[in-house]
Structure formats: C-alpha cells, structure tokens
C-alpha cells in the first residue's frame, strides 16, 4: 500500500511539474481577422472573436469562432466550435493541430463543414491557425483580448 501511494504521489508530483504555467493555454478570448478562401474569392472579416478553451490538463482544447461567415453572401453568421484540438506546449505557447474533426454548429454536429488540416499555434498573445472547413480553406490571426 505504501509503495502504491508513493508511486501515485510521484505521478502527481510529475504532473504538477509538467503543468504549463503559461496562462494563454487557459481559456482566452482573441479578436482578429478571419480569412475565407471561398470559391468566389478570398474575403476577410475583421473583429472576429475566437475563444480558446483548454482542458484541465492543457493537452487538448476547443476553439469557438463567433459569428463567422464562409461566404460574403451568406445570410447568417454562425458560432462554430472545433473540439478535440491537440495541444503541444512550447516555451512561448503551444502548437495546435487536429485532423478530420466534425465541428459543432447550429445546435449539433455539422459534418458538411468537417475540419481538416487544422494547424495553428499560440505564441505569446497571438493565436493563428489555418484549416479547411469542408472544402473551404480558412485562416485566422488574432490577439488576446
């Protein structure tokens, strides 16, 4: 029993030592520019709010994009959540990645906009990422608010 307790205590200590002290890996809101390369052409939307929500262990996160349009003629804006993003911490932030994630929008999973090729990073107070929403290449660059 003492041995097991010692092992568990050791694991706990190890986890605490590995915890990322950088606060940006916790829930942070960013504001920046979303660029959508739609079939009709690329267009930028400024002041797009994005929330980065890391898990307790800070090894994965979800990103919520607020009020985004994927076409300038789109008559609605959507909140889109990309769950299950893998987070690898670095000295100044984190590397973000995931592939083939079904985002959440309009109250449920939205497979028409399955996220592919998500790549991004958090560097100091900047968040950048690029991805394909379905077949629509999209990128974002924002600054922590």
């Amino acid at each position: 029993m003492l041995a097991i307790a010692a092992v568990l205590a050791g694991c706990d200590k190890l986890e605490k030592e590995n915890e990322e002290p950088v606060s940006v890996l916790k829930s942070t809101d960013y504001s920046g520019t979303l660029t959508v390369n739609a079939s009709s052409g690329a267009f930028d939307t400024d002041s797009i709010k994005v929330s980065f929500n890391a898990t307790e262990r800070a090894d994965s996160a979800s990103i919520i994009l607020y009020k985004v349009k994927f076409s300038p003629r789109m008559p609605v804006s959507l909140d889109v959540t990309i769950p299950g993003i893998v987070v690898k911490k670095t000295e100044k932030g984190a590397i973000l990645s995931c592939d083939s994630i079904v985002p959440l929008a309009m109250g449920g999973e939205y497979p028409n906009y399955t996220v592919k090729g998500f790549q991004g990073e958090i560097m100091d107070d900047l968040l950048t990422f690029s991805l394909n929403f379905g077949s629509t290449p999209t990128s974002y660059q924002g600054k922590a608010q």
Partner: protein
Amino acid sequence: MTTLVLISVLATVSPLCDTLSQYLPDITVTALKESVALESIASAVSDISYPTLKSNGIYRPNSLSSIVPGLHIPDYGASMTSTIYLRGMGSRMENPVMGLYIDGIPILDKNVYDFDWEGINRATMLRGPQGTLYGRNSMGGILSLSTLSPTDGARPVISLEYGNANTVRAGASFIIGNNALTTTYRHTDGFFINTYKNAQCDPYDGLALRWKWQNHSHENTCISNILSVNVSEEGGFAYGLWQNDTLYPVSYNDEGSYRRLSVIEGFKLHYCGQTIKTDIVTSLQLLSDDMRMDQDYTDRSVFTLQQKQLSGAGTLELTFRRADDNVIWKPQTGLFSFYKRNSLYAPVVFKRDGIETLILNNANSHIPAEIGQLTISDVTMPVNSDFLIDTWNTALFHESVFDLGRWIITAGLRLDYEGGNMDYDCMARLHYRFEPVMTQDKELDVPYLGAVSHHHLELIPKLSALFKATDAVTLYTTVSKGYRSGGFNTQIFSDILQNLTMNAVMQDIGVYLDKQFVSVSADNTEYDPEYAWNLELGTRLRKGTFSAGASAYYMDVRNQQLTVFPPGMSTGRMMTNAGRSRSIGLETELCWNPEQFRSHISWSWCDARFVSYYDGNLDYSGNLLPYVPKHTLNLGAGYSLRINNNTLDIDASLNGAGPFNWDETGSRQEPFRLKAGCRIAFVFGDWEIYVRGDNLTGTQGRTFYFKSVGNEFFASCKPRMIMIGTNINL
C-alpha cells in the same frame, strides 16, 4: 314644470342641506359638481329621468346610444368592452373618453362601466371636455347617474321581465329608514350560436346589489355610504368571419368568457358651515375579473388570450364652496387624488396551428432553407405575462362662476398630475429543434423582466359664457380642454416575447440572421395622454312643455391614441400617440310633452377626420375616423290614455346611427341603420304590465369589425327582442 337642478354632491345626498332647495317646489337632483343649476351650465346637456329610462328600456349604458345625441356605445363583445364614441373621439382599447360617476363617485375602471341599471333615477350627461372639474378621461363628456335614495320616499318596487333567448330580468327596490336597497338579476341564454360548439356563445348571468345609507339628522351635516356589488359570468365575443362578401356564423373552438366581481364602496360627507360648504367624497373600488378569448375566432387551434386582473383603488375628493348660493361670485376649489394597483395576469397561449402558422412560418421565412429549419414540438406554447401596474393621480382645481344676472361667466383651471409604473415579468417556454443538425429537442426559457414608468403634468383650463337672452332662451359658448390618460400597452408583450424568443433560439444555437426578429421594447410600450380642445356654441330653449337644445362644436384632438403596427414581423398592434384629428359637429335635442303626449328627437352630425395619422404602413391623413357615426338619431313618441282609473301607456321609438367606416381606409362601411322599439304598458292600481320590443325591424346591422391574423370579423346586432314584464309598487 319648474325644474331646477341642484348641481352639488350635497344635492344628491340631501336636498335639505341646500338652503336653496328648500324654497323650490320641484327639484331635479343630479350628482354633478357644477356650482350652478343644470340649465345654467355652458355645456351641452342631456338629462334623462326615470320615466324616460323606463319607457325606452334603458337598463344598460349602451341603451343610451343615440338617445344622447352623438353618443355611440356599440353592443358587442362582453360587458367589459364598453367602447364609447362621442364627438369623434373614442377607441376600443384602454382608457375611455367619457367619465362615469355614480352618485358622485368616479368609476375608475372601464371594465365596470357596463352594469344593470336597476334603481337608477336619473342619467345626466355633459357633452364635451369636462376636464377642469372632472379631470382624466372626461374629454368627451361625463355621464352622471343618480341612484335611488332614502330621501326619495319611493315605495318598494318589484320588477320582472321575460323575453326571447330566455332573457329574465328581475329587480327589487326598497327604502327602509335611512337605507335604500336595490337588487337586480339578469339572465339570458344568449343570442348567437357558436356553430363549432353548437351552443349559444353569449349567455349571461349577473347579480347586482346596491345599498345606500344616508343620514342628515344633524342640521349642517349630511353623510351617506353607498355600497354596490356586481357579480357576473358570461360568454361573449360573438364574432363571425367575413369572407367573400359573406358573413359566416360564429364558429370558434376555444373558450370565450368573462367573469367579473366588482365592489365599490363610497362614503360622502357634506358639511354646511356658515361661510363654506365642504364635500368629501371617498371610495374604495375592487375589481376581480377574468376574460378568456379565442384570439383567432376560428375553429382552428391558433392562439388564446386570458386577462385576469385583481385591482384595488382608492379615491378621495375634497371640495370647498361658498355656503351662500345667492351671491355673484361662486368659487369652487377642490383636491382630487386616487391610487390604483392592478395585478394583471395575461398569458397568450399559442396552440398547434398557431405555432405552425404564426411562429414557425414567420421564423423559418427568415432562415435560409440550406441552413436548416426550426421546429417546435410543443402542443401549446405559453407566453406568460404578469404585470403589476400602479397608477396615481393628484389634482388641484378651481372654478369661479360669476353670476351677473343675465350673464354667467365661468373660468376654471385644473393642475393634474398623473404617474404610473408597470412591472412586467414575462416568460416564454418552448422545446425546439433546429433541423437537420439537431437530433433532439431542447428546452428554452426566455424571460423578460423590467419596469417602465411615466409622469405627466396637465393644465386643464375652461372658459365659458352663458347669456340668458329671455326667460326661455339661453345662449352659451365654451372653450375647454380635456385629456385622456396615458398608459401601458400590455397586449403587445406577447408580440415582444415572440420576437425575443425567436432571437433567443437563434442565439442559443449560435445562428445570427442578418435580418433579425425586430420588436418594440418594453420601454416603447408607454403612451402619452391625448388632449382635446373644444370650441362650442350652443343654445337652449324652454317654453312651457317644449324644450330644445342645440350645439355646434369644433374639437382639435392632439396626441391621439391610436393603434399602429409596431416594427418587425409582429402580428399585433399597439396603442401609441400617432395622430391628430379634428371633429366638427352639430347636436340637437327637442322635447315636447303636452298633457298625456310626449315626444323626443335627438340628432347629431359629426365629421371627424384625421389631420395626420401614419400607422407605420399607410398615411390616413384626411380620412374619416373609423367607428364614428356621421349621424345619430332617436325619435320617440308616447301617449298615456286614461281608462277610468287606469292608464294605457304607448311608446314607440326609432333609433339609428351611421354611416361610418370600419377602418381607417374606409374600405369597409356601415350604412345608417334604424331600429324600431316599442313599449305598451297597462297600469292599474299599483301594477304595471307591459310588452316591450327592441329592434322590432329586425335590422341586421353590425356593431363591430376587426381583423385578426389576416381574417376579417364582424359582430352583428342583436336580433328582434320581445319582452313582457311587470312592475309592482308594494
């Protein structure tokens, strides 16, 4: 007959307290506040005594229509409706344009205007703005009812009447010592069949009790207490669909009913000092009622409305006058105040058809089909609204009458403050799904809470001059102002909640429409008072058994309270100060009562037009105001034939109103229609047996028009009615 009207509250409670009255052989007692006799008031006056009320079968306020020139109170809906039009003013919602006083007590709530008139001795109506003495909601005039008093010395009367639709009216009046007791009961099976339910939709049962106690045992003091209780339960809302120029029978599937308990307790004190007469009139008014309505009036389950309210109010008025009436300067100064609290529960319940057609069709028309479509699984979707509405008013008024012999000059001013506050606590609850993305329903509550308030200060002046050209002829002119109180649009809250709910659903799923569901906010639901300036010229003639009165008026109505379409996709309308109008009119009354013959003619002409009115969609400037009849006419004649010691009374009348437009565009019109009435009574000893008929011509006119959810509806006149009855003087 020498008629003098004592125009003081004192006169109502005790003619003995008024020194002038002691020297007059015949006194007509009213409950008006004016400092001069009725015939010296510089306003158009209709004064209807008990015999006329009886011979015309007037036992409800709407029976006064056309008998009082220009007065139009259509009979439809339920007894809470009491829509009153006078001199081009009026509306079917919110505050009335006519003030009602019963024995000098102001009745604050329009929902209790309509009650059975057993024991009403006299109905006196002053037409035109009476704001200086009477304050709020008297811009069209005031109706003052005098009830049976212990000092009347009348014998106990029992009355019973029966007519078609199993209509029964039974009443009794007794005077015991200082107490006058009156009770009446009315029942009818109803006159219109709801074909969906295969049952009458407008049955009525009502019981009214009034107890008046008076004591003037002290030389200078008169006190009285008046308690009236009205309880009724009825159906109503006999509205038929108008489609393809055809009026279909009433057919709706949800409940249409109205229940009411009204208690009014009034206390009056009059003190005659050596130099000053003091009157104190105070009252407590309780109203508990519950109205349920099928809002779409069809056999589909679209939506229903309930309005359940419990209100309590207290009024207090102090009036000071000079004790000596035989003076040139007759000042009157008073202070009036009331406080009213109304707790209103007003849920709108959308049923399945309503959820589909009113909510989802509207919502999904905004949502691109490629994004998805909203569904709501609820069988019913309640939009609950609770309101707590406080209203308070304080006024200081003064009127000076200068009696200069042949000239009587009157000048008055009222400073009137009114405040109001409405707390609203509303919530919509639904289970929605946004397909195809969502696979399960989600519950969503949409609360909406807050408070709005308003404060208004009014100056209500009056200036009039009356000239007694001869003993028989009087001329007068008046400039006066009146106002109708502002208020809060409670009915629009269900529309606000509909739009808020749709926006909340969209926000809940993170979808933001470029074109959002737009609605007014609660802050915009308050509307201001409406004002009317009146310029009037008139004359009165009294010669022997002949009397006549005529008046011509010009009224300028500003800040007019009108219903408009609010912005957005709302299905409702709301009251707002959207317009300005003017009314030009003539009113005439002739009366000739020689010996056993009696005759009466009332006629009015009114041209009431919008000076400006934009309802949010169309501009109606220059158009006639809807619901306002161009003419009202009442012709009445009667003869009493003596047969030994018995009497045969025969009275006949023609009563009509119109033409008028049903809406602001004038696309729907009602022609002038006449209805005939008759009463034949045989009086022997203490018994009277009579046969009475209303609408003997079987006129199939309409009394009300409105639109609901794109459909048009009419309420029809009640059919021909024949009643037999008896009055027994015990």
